[in-house]
């Protein structure tokens, strides 16, 4: 993950990397404010803001009442008038309360107003299952926002990208939605010190390979990498692409890989139907890369049900490494 180009790099957790990005932003740009429920003294439901309130005070790290629609709207209005708010949803599921402000206002204001105003707001959405919090606290709704022109939507899978994409989002003049995976918060990885940017709209090739392309998003990138190791032992050489950005989607990186491998597997945690993988598949199927396809495009997505509570059920409804292995083997060996 091109750490070699960076001056200094330490091991940080994904949550720490995000906090560091916010710390840099708060210390270098007076316009930056953090807003969200219990992000102050509590440190955030997932301890992402941590102790930032002690360093920057309650005026910069603002606990909001439990008012997602209003809170998101305040962030939008503030962004239109000179602040650079970073709004944290406590769980991405609560974005269901704020879709009006995100979709009708943040995403459309600039266009509706003929370009006279931009809305540089950043919103953070702790997403995904695996915490035993059941159906209303475990959703992966990035596909909804990916469907909305005017927004940019990213899903960092590593600490380095979590920091770099947040810093990129803050420099972006338009609304950027960051879907963070809760289970990744504690994952550690190398993170360059200081300010740097991970470009929005660029996928990353996490592993080169020639036999098939696995496009994964968020936590599924790690599962895909684990599967790729095993596949390699079996003589199947998988290329693993971390999509990173749902909107805009990095067409070129995906197509180039498919042209090379001729086989595509999409792995994502969101519900399979109309999830991010549907777009990846359709984008490839309508491109010139179609002619290079040697097999159907396979998708592994979340099951067609809400996320259940029981831990075994919870695991069963999202793709796991054995599922990826199974699908990849079939795809690579022509069994599909």
């Amino acid at each position, binding site marked *: 993950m091109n750490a070699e180009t960076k001056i200094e790099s330490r091991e940080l957790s994904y949550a720490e990397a995000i906090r560091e990005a916010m710390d840099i932003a708060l210390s270098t740009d007076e316009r930056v404010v953090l807003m969200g429920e219990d992000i102050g003294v509590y440190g955030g439901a997932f301890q992402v803001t941590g102790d930032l309130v002690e360093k920057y005070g309650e005026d910069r790290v603002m606990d909001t*009442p439990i008012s997602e629609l209003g809170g998101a709207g305040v962030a939008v209005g503030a962004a239109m008038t000179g602040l650079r708010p970073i709004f944290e949803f406590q769980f991405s599921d609560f974005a269901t309360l704020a879709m009006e402000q995100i979709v009708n206002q943040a995403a459309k204001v600039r266009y509706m107003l003929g370009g006279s105003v931009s809305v540089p707001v950043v919103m953070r959405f702790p997403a995904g299952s695996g*915490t035993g*919090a059941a159906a*209303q606290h475990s959703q992966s709704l990035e596909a909804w926002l990916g469907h909305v022109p005017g927004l940019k939507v990213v899903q960092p899978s590593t600490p380095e990208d979590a920091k770099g994409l947040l810093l990129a989002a803050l420099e972006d003049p338009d609304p950027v939605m960051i879907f963070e995976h809760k289970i990744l918060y504690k994952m550690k990885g190398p993170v360059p010190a200081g300010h740097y940017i991970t470009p929005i709209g660029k996928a990353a090739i996490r592993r080169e390979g020639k036999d098939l392309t696995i496009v994964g998003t968020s936590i599924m990138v790690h599962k895909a990498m684990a599967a790729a190791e095993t596949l390699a032992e079996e003589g199947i050489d998988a290329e693993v692409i971390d999509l990173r950005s749902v909107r805009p989607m990095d067409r070129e990186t995906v197509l180039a890989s498919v042209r090379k491998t001729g086989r595509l597997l999409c792995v994502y945690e969101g519900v399979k139907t109309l999830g991010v993988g549907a777009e990846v598949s359709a984008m490839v199927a309508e491109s010139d890369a179609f002619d290079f396809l040697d097999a159907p495009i396979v998708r592994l997505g979340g*099951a*067609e049900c809400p996320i259940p*509570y029981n831990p075994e059920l919870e695991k069963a409804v999202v793709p796991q490494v054995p599922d990826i292995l199974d699908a990849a083997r079939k795809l690579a060996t022509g069994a599909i």
Partner: protein
Amino acid sequence: MDSIDDVANAPYAIRHYAPETLKDALRKMFLIRKFEEGAEDSYTRGLIHGTMHLSIGQEASAVGSCMALTDEDKITSTHRGHGHCVAKGADLGKMFAEFFGKETGYCKGRGGSMHIADPGKGNLGANGIVGGGLPIAVGAALSAKRLGTGAVTVCFFGDGANNEGAFHEALNMAAVWKLPVVFVCENNKYGMSTSTERSTAVANIADRAVAYAMPGKTVDGNDFSAVAESVDTAVARARAGEGPSLIENVTYRWRGHSKSDRNRYRTKEEITDWMARDPIPRMARLLIDHHILSEADVDAIEAEAEATIKDAIAFAADSPDPTVDAVTRDVYTDEIAA
């Protein structure tokens, strides 16, 4: 005249309920306390996955608010809903089984702590969404009115929920349509770490009743009798077709918000202070003072509650897990190929 024996001046609860009813109320309060302690213990022992929100300290609010309700009447509950569920007559074994994610649980292991429901007893369910139950309660009240069932809905929610738009919309509609619903705000001073002072523009949440032209009342939520009196009055009003009310039970949660709470937003003193106002001994004292129970009776009720919980935990622990194959069952009433 000894004021304790002056029935006319006795607290509402003493005047209004039969001794057996009061005894049952105390039993339920103990059951809630023991349930929560059992849950906490099970969590520590790794039997529970996920999160949980304990209502220790709030037992009088849960039980007192359900006194006037029958199984036909509905409640909607919250993420902190175990107490409401017990108050509305749930089976403790099925509750624990749900908590343990078992097939025998109220939700067949699909819901967990935040979704325990018991529609048969009129409990429409806990809710993981703060404020999520408010419009649903109004809908249940609309059904009751349209279908003429005479049922009343008690809608539980927290002080934090009162800043959600759903609160405003729900109370307004209930008032405009004069629906049989009682909004019971359990004001335990904090929504997670955020105090009402830092999040809510009014001194008392019940003051907001003015905005919906409905009666509003702030009550000592640790005083069983006071809670029961206020909610009973509101339920009677609702049943008589006079519309909704807003009752604010001021209380306190002894434990952290959930297991991730570092408790940095309130002082030890504040917590100890409130623990001294424990609603359970207070209720026990009331019943003892009014010769309804002896100290020994109280001890027996407590011991019985403890045993019930023990059995419930054993039932849950021994119950089977749901089968993974059936994971998409119950998404739809009639199975469809999605």
